[in-house]
């Protein structure tokens, strides 16, 4: 019970400090708008197919996540608060607190991108809503899970942002490939049950990465 409440406390602390500065939210929002507008300017009146649109969607999600999700740990190192955090909380509650924060952030990010894409691209119409929702929720959790542990590595490596996408891309690619396929399916209007294998992949990916990160986090967090 105690670890649960300290996990919650860390989530709350991160949310509060985020609300105070709005650093990650602003960066993510501006990134998403810029990316969508650039793509829109490039394609103008073309009618991209649903697989192209789902590809663009996940490209924007990936790079936006890479620009924002490392904040949680990098800011601890920058402010020099990681030592204090090590003292007051167990590493697993730190990990899950940060993970929950990143999941919330990724879900918000996905929501923003979905709204923006619907407005900007006439071809981006979600036909099968359940498929789309499930895909986005599962992929957000998976994305946040892998990004959180990598953010911890990056923060300790003192390389700031440059190495983050390099490290994340090969690890996230199985997830992104599956998510792109499922999203294209949702845009095409395939029935909900058609891509059961994709959800299986996404769920097992989430479980494997989260369990692995939970076991490994201790070695990253404590020097």
């Amino acid at each position: 019970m105690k670890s649960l409440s300290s996990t919650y406390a860390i989530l709350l602390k991160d949310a509060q400090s985020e609300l105070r500065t709005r650093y990650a939210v602003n960066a993510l929002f501006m990134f998403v708008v810029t990316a969508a507008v650039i793509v829109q300017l490039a394609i103008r009146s073309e009618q991209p197919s649903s697989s192209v649109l789902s590809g663009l969607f996940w490209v924007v999600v990936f790079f936006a996540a890479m620009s924002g999700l490392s904040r949680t740990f990098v800011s601890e190192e920058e402010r020099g608060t990681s030592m204090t955090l090590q003292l007051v909380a167990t590493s697993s509650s730190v990990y899950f607190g940060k993970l929950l924060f990143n999941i919330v952030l990724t879900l918000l990010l996905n929501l923003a991108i979905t709204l923006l894409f619907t407005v900007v691209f006439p071809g981006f119409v979600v036909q099968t809503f359940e498929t789309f929702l499930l895909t986005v929720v599962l992929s957000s959790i998976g994305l946040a899970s892998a990004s959180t542990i990598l953010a911890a590595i990056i923060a300790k490596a003192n390389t700031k942002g440059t190495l983050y996408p390099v490290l994340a891309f090969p690890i996230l690619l199985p997830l992104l490939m599956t998510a792109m396929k499922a999203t294209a399916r949702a845009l095409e209007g395939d029935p909900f049950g058609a891509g059961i294998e994709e959800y299986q992949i996404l769920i097992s990916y989430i479980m494997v990465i989260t369990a692995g990160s939970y076991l490994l986090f201790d070695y990253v967090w404590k020097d």
Partner: protein
Amino acid sequence: MFGKTSTTIFKYGSVSLISVVLVAGLAIPMTVSPQSWLEFPVIPGLEEKARNLFFHVPMSWTAVLAFFFSAVYGIRYLRTKNIDFDVVSVSSAGLGLLFSILATVTGALWAKFNWGAFWNWDPRQTSIFILLLIYGAYFALRSAIDSEEKRAGLSAVYTILAGLTVPFLVFIMPRMMAGLHPGAQGDASGKGPLFEANMIAPNMRMLFYVSLIGFSLLFLWLLHLRVRAGRLEFQQKQGER
């Protein structure tokens, strides 16, 4: 890391087995209806290109094996904090990079003459490409960290984490997606392992397994050499301090 007997086995075993595979794999003639053990059957569509099977597949296998070694020694490093395990892990990753480049090149050449293009984004080509990216990212991460212990710890975590996603790439995705390699979805032989034992003649199969063992032994020998060099380097660095 390895005893004296086992290193002797690696050395002479790999040299003799790979020599056998080179001679037999290239010199045994291919005929339409093989009569003896010293004749390979002609596989329609592959013909002489089928000989690449003895080199390309074991190289990809060794790349994955090297990755596995790197992850296992990463775990051992994290448990014991013994820097020697980090030397093994990084040496194995370096060899994995070498073998995955070899597998990519032999595969691309084979693909050019069988499928028409050097690169087709077949699921397995994608997965070897990602394996290359992982190795690249691993060395980029290592070069970014100055402190020895930190470098060893963080890169060990990264290999293990990447090792968790490799099964998705190597074993799950290629079977679920349409592709050109045998065993992909939509392939006549159905969903199955990449290499189906009954697909090829028994003598080819034998030689293939000999090649697998030969290349694995070669990897172990090379690993042993690199680890010894790495240890010497480490000792020397400590002596300077």
